[in-house]
């Protein structure tokens, strides 16, 4: 084929392919928003990605095919293995990890571009320079922040907030160092030590950003990091002036921000408070005080046999799962219990709090894994009016999201947070390992109510025992 013709045609062809790919992303995301079309939407977005990658490989700057194809192959194999091996309970870590890799890739694009400009001693345009600095910051923060979130969720390090003296001044000085270094680089773009300093400061900022945030606030952090990974990709798009990266990055940035907002609303807390207040750090101390202060209040504890009788002879049961269910991997036993109860003519529903668990939609995924029909899952706003007519609310490993203090006690740290109103049910059974407090570190009045009975033990054991007891009814 004629070379001259090809060199005209190719760039246009690549850009038009990008346009198609961007449209497929938007279409895919739209379809992801509805249960009936979600799976198709994911495939549509994946096709868009494939088109974009193939088009980029045809770029005339790209000569290093073998190595790039090798890199793509290695990445694909690793990604596929991870996707098929991961347990559904490990999904928050998985999302965190993948997020971090995306952020790292975006930051590396800026670093690679810096090196190319350094070697060629080209004049660095101001806009590229600013974009590189932003890309390194956002990508770096996404990378280390996500890795730290991964480590916390995986239990590699403690999930509780980590604070130290002068934390805020330290963070502020990091930020100032970044701004000063960045400003200097705008005047002297080829200064390697300062650039490396900027990279290091960005990475440290990512760590500092996630370190004071506790496990229960993870849904917010994961959503926010998701948004950052998109913004990092968009920043990389500004560095290499590629519309495809800018569009895809902006879409992801927007979706992450929407989720972040939903999560904050579900906790009745501002993003600022989630990020900077080290919520729940006083957990151990105030938990102890709560338990001590609780001596004048009585708790009614029952055994699985009694629990089974309450459930088996009820007309309606609402199951409220929380992070404890995920930890104990009790979702399959719960499904078994629900099946058994339904066979006995009990109406079973599940009530899902938006921030139950460690990421948006965590409970939904686990219950889906256990084949719970999603028509049985009720959002907070839909189920709350129904608790009045519910015979038994069965709370499994949830605590703060069912604490009535959020409604009644203006001094409680969780006051104002929308909760699942299980205390309005005729009876409440709480399955819990002990009397410890939830993530917010506050005592739960629900446990001391007359209508509430406690089943002490691990969620999995207790639900399994309930199943066998219910079978004998």
């Amino acid at each position, binding site marked *: 084929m004629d070379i001259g013709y090809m060199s005209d045609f190719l760039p246009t062809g690549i850009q038009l392919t990008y346009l198609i790919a961007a449209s497929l992303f938007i279409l895919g995301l739209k379809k992801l928003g509805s249960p009936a079309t979600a799976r198709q939407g*994911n495939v549509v*977005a994946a096709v868009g990605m494939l088109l974009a990658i193939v088009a980029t490989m045809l770029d005339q700057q790209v000569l290093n095919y073998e190595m790039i194809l090798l890199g793509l192959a290695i990445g694909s194999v690793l990604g596929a293995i991870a996707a098929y091996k991961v347990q559904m309970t490990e999904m928050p870590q*998985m999302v965190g990890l993948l997020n971090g890799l995306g952020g790292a890739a975006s930051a590396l694009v800026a670093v690679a571009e810096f090196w190319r400009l350094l070697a060629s001693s080209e004049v660095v345009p101001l806009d590229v320079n600013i974009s590189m600095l932003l890309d390194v910051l956002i990508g770096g923060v996404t990378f280390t922040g996500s890795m730290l979130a991964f480590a916390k969720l995986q239990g590699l390090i403690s999930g509780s907030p980590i604070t130290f003296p002068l934390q805020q001044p330290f963070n502020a000085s990091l930020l100032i160092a970044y701004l000063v270094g960045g400003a200097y680089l705008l005047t002297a773009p080829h200064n390697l030590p300062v650039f490396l300093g900027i990279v290091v400061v960005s990475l440290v900022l990512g760590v500092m950003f996630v370190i004071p945030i506790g496990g229960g606030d993870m849904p917010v952090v994961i959503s926010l990091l998701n948004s950052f990974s998109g913004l990092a*990709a968009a920043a990389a798009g500004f560095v290499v002036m590629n519309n495809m990266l800018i569009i895809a990055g902006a*879409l992801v940035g927007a979706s992450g921000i929407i989720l972040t907002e939903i999560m904050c609303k579900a906790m009745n807390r501002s993003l600022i408070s989630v990020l900077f207040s080290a919520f729940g750090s006083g957990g151990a101390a105030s938990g102890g005080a709560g338990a001590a202060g609780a001596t004048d209040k009585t708790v009614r504890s029952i055994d699985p046999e009694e629990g089974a009788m309450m459930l088996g002879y009820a007309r309606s049961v609402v199951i409220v799962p929380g992070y404890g269910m995920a930890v104990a991997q009790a979702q399959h036993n719960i499904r078994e219990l629900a099946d058994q109860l339904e066979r006995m003519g009990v109406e079973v529903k599940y009530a899902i709090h938006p921030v139950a668990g460690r990421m948006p939609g965590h409970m939904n*995924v686990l219950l889906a894994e256990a084949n719970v029909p999603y028509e049985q899952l009720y959002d907070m706003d839909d189920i709350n009016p129904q608790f009045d007519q519910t015979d038994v609310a069965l709370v499994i490993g949830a605590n703060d999201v069912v604490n009535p203090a959020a409604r009644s006690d203006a001094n409680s740290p969780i006051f104002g947070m929308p909760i699942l109103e299980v205390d309005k049910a005729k009876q409440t059974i709480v399955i819990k390992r002990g009397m410890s407090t939830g993530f917010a570190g506050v005592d739960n009045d629900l446990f001391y109510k007359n209508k509430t009975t406690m089943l002490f033990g691990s969620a999995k054991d207790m639900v399994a025992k309930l199943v066998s007891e219910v079978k004998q009814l």
Partner: protein
Amino acid sequence: MTEALIAALFVFVLASFTGFEVINKVPPTLHTPLMSGSNAISGIAVLGAIVASGAREWNLSVILGLIAVILATVNVVGGFLVTDRMLQMFKKKANG
């Protein structure tokens, strides 16, 4: 170059608004798949990585670019596949 920057800013802002409009009102059941699916899309950085590692001769830029290719591809492939795995479970229930 500034003209290109302005055009790129237009693209960015308009795409952000599109994202807000398209994704708003997603039911809670789909929050996780939406997150992992959009997460896979953020692996679009792989395009930048491919361009960065495109040169024939070996230098640090190319090496960094290739590392970025691998990382971003894990993000893309892992993200889409795990989302599909999740959504498959959701679908199975709807039928049975």
